[in-house]
């Protein structure tokens, strides 16, 4: 297997999975250079579908790295090929992105609004209500997302976006509902199980902070959140047992100091079961974490789990 094919497969995977949307600036630069070099020397090994997928990736990377001239030239190349197709939402999306990035928001809006039946473009339009300066001020955005989901309830990606937006402003119960909507359609989506677990855990932290009394029924209520978080994290691991973040969450839950408060309540059957399995999970997750996460990265991952 030659290096060129390996590299090609990797770049195509990045293009199709959209991984570039979460790249750090270093990665963007690195992939930009790699892709440019690859397209220069090995265009022959690509068929036309692969080639245009990589052009799309090149466009995104150029746009993110503020190279507007290059982005424009790649976009023109794509328009030459597909611009005559009036129905292509994918190409119009790229056009609108370019307009938005170069500051011509009105024109981008006009392009997206043209036909209300083009759902992908309407979806993009919802993001224009996002407040770029303050991420927590997303009431309008959430309202628009919900409006879109009323029209297109099977759009899993939008449910995921909605869930994350709710999570940002601390409406964890609503976030959990959104993620569970995804699980209804895709019951093996293990990263989503993790997100459900995480939001239960955040919800628990939130409630715990506001906890004033130590009344029994309050504690039982709280423990339910914790048990839900643990169960969802465990489901994630059942499907994919190398998902390190989920192991970490289990470890944190099983060592949480709230468990000591609960130990007074072991007359309740659920809590007793929970505490017994906790001990086993703590040992197991310790072993797994030391296998899966290198030591120098552990603190970093732990920090991500704190309540924002």
């Amino acid at each position, binding site marked *: *297997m030659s290096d060129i094919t*390996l590299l090609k497969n990797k770049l195509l995977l990045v293009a199709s999975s959209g991984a570039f949307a979460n790249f750090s600036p270093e990665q963007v630069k690195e992939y930009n250079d790699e892709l440019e070099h690859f397209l220069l020397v090995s265009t022959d090994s690509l068929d036309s579908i692969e080639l245009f997928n990589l052009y799309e990736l090149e466009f995104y990377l150029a746009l993110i790295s503020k190279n507007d001239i290059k982005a424009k030239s790649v976009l023109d190349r794509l328009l030459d090929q597909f611009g005559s197709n009036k129905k292509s939402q994918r190409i119009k999306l790229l056009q609108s992105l370019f307009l938005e990035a170069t500051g011509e928001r009105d024109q981008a809006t006009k392009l997206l609004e043209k036909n209300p039946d083009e759902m992908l473009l309407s979806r993009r339009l919802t993001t224009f209500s996002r407040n770029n300066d303050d991420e927590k001020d997303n009431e309008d955005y959430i309202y628009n997302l919900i409006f879109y989901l009323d029209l297109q309830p099977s759009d899993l990606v939008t449910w995921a976006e909605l869930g994350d937006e709710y999570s940002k402003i601390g409406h964890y119960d609503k976030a959990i509902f959104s993620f569970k909507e995804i699980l209804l359609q895709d019951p093996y989506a293990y990263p989503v199980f993790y997100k459900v677990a995480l939001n239960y855990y955040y919800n628990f932290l939130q409630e715990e902070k506001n906890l004033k009394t130590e009344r029994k029924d309050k504690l039982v209520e709280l423990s339910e959140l914790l048990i839900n978080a643990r169960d969802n994290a465990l489901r994630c691991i059942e499907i994919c047992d190398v998902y390190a973040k989920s192991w970490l969450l289990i470890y944190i839950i099983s060592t949480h100091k709230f468990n000591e408060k609960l130990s007074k309540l072991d007359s309740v059957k659920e809590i007793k079961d929970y505490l017994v399995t906790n001990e086993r999970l703590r040992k197991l997750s310790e072993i797994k974490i030391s296998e899966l996460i290198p030591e120098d990265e552990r603190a970093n991952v732990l920090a991500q789990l704190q309540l924002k």
Partner: protein
Amino acid sequence: MATNSSTAAFYVVGLLLLIHSGYSSFEFHKLSIVSHYHGSLPIDIVLETVIAIIIIVIGAITSVSNTPVLSLKGEQINSRSKFLKFIEMKDAVTVIESIGLSDYEELNTRVGFINIIKKRREYSEWLGQST
């Protein structure tokens, strides 16, 4: 299907043997008509054919071996199984997880919702820091 050098070698040797045995068989039948001979095919031709077939089958088996993949960081990752892919979900997803992605990456990256302005701002801030 991936073709590598050992597969090609098996195929070439196997096909040469097969052609050779075919030609021998052809000659044998021609001669037996001329000389009115009524025996069966000589054992060496039979053996050659059988060996050729086995070599070709082995070549086909080597051609289905798994190809390595590059992770996002550029490391080469080999699958834990040499030829086939694991069908249990928890084994099968380890390959894509080790690349640094998952099959549900779309739900995490959400390109359709990309905040291009923010990404560009981050990039120029990083550029300003590093120079």
